[in-house]
């Protein structure tokens, strides 16, 4: 396991940073990273470092993808980061020896999820969203640009925030299912 120890110490910090970019949850990210290394354990032997780290990154990225798909939610922090995500993911891909064609998997998924949520917003809200989260403008600048007051912009931002929160709450099926079990097991 000495091989993995080195790999762990060299790559775990940045892998953790990468994963937490998409989960926006520290504990969840650590779980994903640890699971990835555990999975790597069963298949790393006899491979050189280049392909092992490629494998590691692919495993972690697929786990992130599963996480995003199953939670079907996008944290607003992620939305705020989205204009950097593409480049950021390509940087990570490169540092784990993946070619450019293999990168941009998660950022595209995030974009799709965001688009789905944004499509439910009113046209004005969508405008505010684009200016704030895609172009990265300040509330005051947006107000001037759209000819509305700063507090009106804040109101739109609150609506956007609610829309993102709602998306997270529209899939409670799993939780509802769990309640009887929860009751059986823990009462």
């Amino acid at each position, binding site marked *: *396991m000495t091989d993995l*120890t080195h790999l762990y110490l060299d790559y775990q910090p940045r892998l953790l940073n990468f994963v937490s970019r998409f989960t926006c949850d520290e504990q969840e990210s650590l779980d994903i990273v640890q699971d990835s290394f555990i999975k790597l*354990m069963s298949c790393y032997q006899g491979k050189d470092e280049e392909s092992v780290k490629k494998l590691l990154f692919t495993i972690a990225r697929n786990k992130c993808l599963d996480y995003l798909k199953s939670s079907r939610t996008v944290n607003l922090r992620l939305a705020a980061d989205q204009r*950097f995500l593409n480049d950021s993911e390509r*940087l990570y891909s490169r540092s784990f020896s993946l070619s450019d064609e293999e990168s941009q998997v998660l950022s595209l998924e995030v974009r799709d999820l965001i688009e789905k949520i944004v499509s439910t917003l009113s046209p004005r809200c969508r405008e505010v969203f684009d200016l704030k989260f895609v172009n990265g403008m300040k509330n005051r600048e947006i107000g001037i640009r759209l000819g509305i007051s700063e507090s009106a912009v804040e109101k739109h931002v609150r609506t956007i925030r609610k829309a993102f929160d709602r998306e997270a709450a529209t899939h409670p099926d799993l939780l509802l299912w769990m309640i009887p079990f929860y009751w059986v097991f823990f009462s």
Partner: protein
Amino acid sequence: MDNRLTELSLKFFEGKTTAEEESLLFSEISRSGETATEFRLLEEKWKTTHTPSRKTAGELGAFRRMARKAERRDRRPFLRRNIWLAGVLAAACVAIGLLVFKPEAGKEPAAPAKAQTFMVEAPLGTHGKISLPDGTSVWLNAGSKISYDADFNTSNRNVSLVGEACFDVVHNEDLPLVVSTSGCRFRVLGTKFNISAYEDDGCVRAALIEGSLQVNSPVGEEVMAKGEVVSVSSESGSIHKYADDVAQYISWTEGKIRYSNIPVPELMRRLSREFNVEIVLQVESVSSRNMRVAFSREDSIDDIMKAVCEILRTSSVKVGRSFYIVENNKSRKDVQ
């Protein structure tokens, strides 16, 4: 590459950059091949010089524990599925008290790892049976112990033995099982054999039930075939190989003490370990004799001693947990 970019790169390796900084770094690197090369060189240098943070070291420790757990889980699917059975077995083991398990679990080191050693011991008067991480079964005779490192079955299958043990080894072409004992090494791929290496016997004796076994002593080497016995002298390291009824050497795993031709002093040593008593042989003339015996663990040591003495035409005197074997017609007074 200017200072700011170097700093940003280091921050990236340490997993401390924000998405915005990463985006900036990416555009700088992809702008010129020269910067990309410098970035790669910087990474190689960082890898050899950086010290991991406490947080990362702690997480590595947690990962190692998880990895060990996962390995054990994968290796024993049956017990995993029947966790209650495992519990019952564990409880039974403790209750019977046949086995003293001493995992010498050291503290988890930050980095790099130092191998842990596990030791299993069957104290005098008891037997033990364990499964090694690779599924190999080991019976431990009274007063024996074996130990192996935490990396057993990942990078090696080395165990060291003091005393007597019977191995039923799971076949694995890639990792031969190596038993080290009093200067001898036994190397196998998968087979069943018994090794007796009690220090007071003055020799290591191995009996091969199935498969093949390679023996290395400090002065020689020998390959054993099924049904053969080797005895390696602890003093000279010389190896003596002969064919024998090998089943007798593993009869102890079934709770019997059966030997077709055992020297009296060795029999006494075996009995004393088996029943955790002291046996003192005070009659010179019987030391050179051999005996054919068949006892059960269920028999009492008193009965066994009586029978043995009858055959040897001697008497035995019991004082506490000690038996003195003396000439006929000597009384307790003469002993003390």
